[in-house]
């Protein structure tokens, strides 16, 4: 019940493409769903987060879509750039900022020019 399942494991797109990363959870107590970006040798950095009372959130080129009934959420990266090449993790938590985060297994994204 504590798992967050993430797919695909890796993704290759051309510059300008729209990669989509999907996550699914089981625990209905989860109330906060962030996405993190991690570059090699660096710690995860928060990209965007959503709560289940909204179905979509956009911040710049990044969009989260949330389907509460299906217990699924996804990250869309619009107009992807080579600089977006990184590993992306979805996560879930019962509380926004102070509770433990349950992470997915990660998606390695490569954006080619």
């Amino acid at each position, binding site marked *: 019940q504590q798992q967050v399942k993430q797919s695909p494991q890796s993704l290759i797109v051309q510059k300008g493409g729209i990669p989509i990363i999907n996550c699914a959870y089981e625990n209905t107590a989860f109330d906060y769903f962030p996405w993190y970006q991690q570059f090699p040798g660096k710690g995860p950095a928060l990209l965007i987060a959503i709560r289940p009372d909204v179905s979509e959130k956009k911040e710049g080129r990044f969009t989260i879509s949330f389907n509460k009934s299906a217990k699924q959420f996804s990250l869309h990266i619009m107009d992807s750039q080579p600089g977006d090449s990184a590993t992306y*993790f979805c996560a879930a938590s019962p509380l926004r900022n102070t*509770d*433990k*985060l349950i992470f997915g297994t*990660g998606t390695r994204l490569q954006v080619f020019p």
Partner: protein
Amino acid sequence: DAGVTQSPTHLIKTRGQQVTLRCSPKSGHDTVSWYQQALGQGPQFIFQYYEEEERQRGNFPDRFSGHQYPNYSSELNVNALLLGDSALYLCASSLTGSDQPQHFGDGTRLSIL
């Protein structure tokens, strides 16, 4: 405004030894969480410290212990090291009661020989 800082950056130990990793939280933060990230995996929650006490714990053995000091800095101690303890250890800080997300440091890469 310094972010989360961790030391050392890299560490090599042998099986059976003990190790101490250190973390200074982002300025203004009072809560520190520790995560273990194995190669190619998402971070896994070890435990969280608030007001110098362990507030939450993940599924890690008692060989993993921690401490938080009055200045909010924290240590992670691992005893009787196993080969499987080789990982990137991440520290994240947050402010309890706020609406701000956890901020991660760049981690300590621990290698067990």
